């Protein structure tokens, strides 16, 4: 039995482990794939206080070493279910069941897909969700970026310096991303912006060869031949396995305020999978600290309640 089981070893989960260990609680971190999560894809972090430049990989490694150095245990198994038995929670993986008094859900999010036929098959064969990871393969080639948020705009800008031609396809007529980035894109001679349009078909043999774009205003179709399609249409929280236990909002995020409490007693949440205004590294780590502190407070309160009930059953308080 652990005091706290943290699900997910991203920045939020590993920070929660640090805070819980410093409160002298036993901590198990369960991770499905590898420490770090989404931040591993960032080659250079420039907005985390104190470090002017650090790669996502180095950031994750240091954070892991810090948490492990403080005594957090890491096991690489995917949590697929939580059983809430009241004072004890069971976290189930395909291999084992772990018991905890409190659980912190720090599962993060995954790339949202377009949902088109062949999309999965073509990942790595023309389709990518990470321009900074795969952009180099498309030097002097023709690519398209789908999306209208900051990630899409930054991806398009990054690719504009590598590729021969970049199409930016967005379903609305204005971008959600920062105007300064959009303005820089408009100045790039090799960037063509296609608004009010959806990608409606992937045309491929072994590799992606072209895409079909449908104009939302007049329904007209256009085929664009290309080598690569970068999909940046947001992310979806990885909370599906716990939907019956904690309350989710319409988009699938765990409903929780700044205190990181979920609807279930003793279950907390931290990081990108929580309802929040700003999803950044610094807000993920802040969540980790908050969730662990609240979990420790919850443990203390339940322990106190247990002691009080024992004393009452013995018939007196000294």
């Amino acid at each position, binding site marked *: 039995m652990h005091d706290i089981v943290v699900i997910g070893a991203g920045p939020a989960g590993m920070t929660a482990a640090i805070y819980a260990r410093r409160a002298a609680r036993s901590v198990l971190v369960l991770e499905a794939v590898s420490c770090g999560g989404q931040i591993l894809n960032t080659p250079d972090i420039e907005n985390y206080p104190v470090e002017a430049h650090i790669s996502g990989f180095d950031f994750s490694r240091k954070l892991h070493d810090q948490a492990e150095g403080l005594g957090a245990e890491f096991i*690489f198994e995917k949590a697929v279910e939580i059983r809430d038995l009241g004072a004890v929670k069971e976290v189930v993986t395909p291999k084992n069941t772990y018991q905890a008094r409190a659980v912190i859900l720090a599962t993060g999010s995954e790339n949202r897909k377009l949902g088109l036929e062949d999309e999965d098959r073509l990942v*790595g064969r023309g389709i990518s969700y990470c321009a900074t*990871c*795969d952009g180099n393969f498309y030097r002097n080639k023709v690519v398209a970026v789908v999306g209208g948020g900051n990630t899409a705009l930054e991806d398009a800008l990054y690719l504009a310096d590598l590729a021969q031609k970049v199409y930016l396809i967005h379903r609305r007529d204005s971008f959600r991303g920062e105007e300064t980035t959009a303005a820089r894109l408009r100045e790039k001679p090799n960037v063509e912006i296609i608004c009010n349009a959806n990608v409606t078909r992937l045309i491929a043999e072994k590799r992606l060869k072209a895409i079909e774009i449908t104009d939302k205003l007049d329904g007209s179709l256009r085929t664009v031949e290309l080598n690569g399609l970068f999909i940046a249409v947001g992310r979806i929280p990885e909370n599906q396995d716990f939907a019956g236990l904690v309350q989710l909002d319409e988009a699938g995020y765990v409903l929780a305020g700044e205190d990181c409490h979920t609807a279930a007693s003793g279950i907390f949440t931290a990081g990108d999978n929580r309802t929040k205004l700003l999803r950044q590294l610094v807000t993920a780590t802040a969540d980790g600290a908050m969730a662990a502190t609240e979990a420790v407070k919850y443990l203390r309160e339940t322990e106190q309640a247990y002691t009080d009930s024992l004393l009452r059953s013995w018939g007196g308080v000294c």
Partner: protein
Amino acid sequence: MSVVEVNQANFKAEVLESPIPVLADFNADWCGPCKAMRPMLEELAESGPSYKIVSIDIDAESDLAEEYDVTSIPCLVLFKDGQEANRSIGLISKDAIAQLAEG
């Protein structure tokens, strides 16, 4: 055994002519997920598996990357008798890597 560094010069001998299956890890030093996967590959290689694990730097060995149509990394390609038998793209768990290699 540890992970074997492979280049154009020893690719044929180490991979194509290998008597046991070979799991080739196409990676680059700027790729965070590749770096995260490396310790898992090292651990698997050290555990005495029935296959060999090799590493190919796609920047230094761009011809190999192109020949095997690698356009997204990390990319693991399983070779059996000199032929591609399976591949996986993106960061996956150590268990999933073992499964791919043993499959």
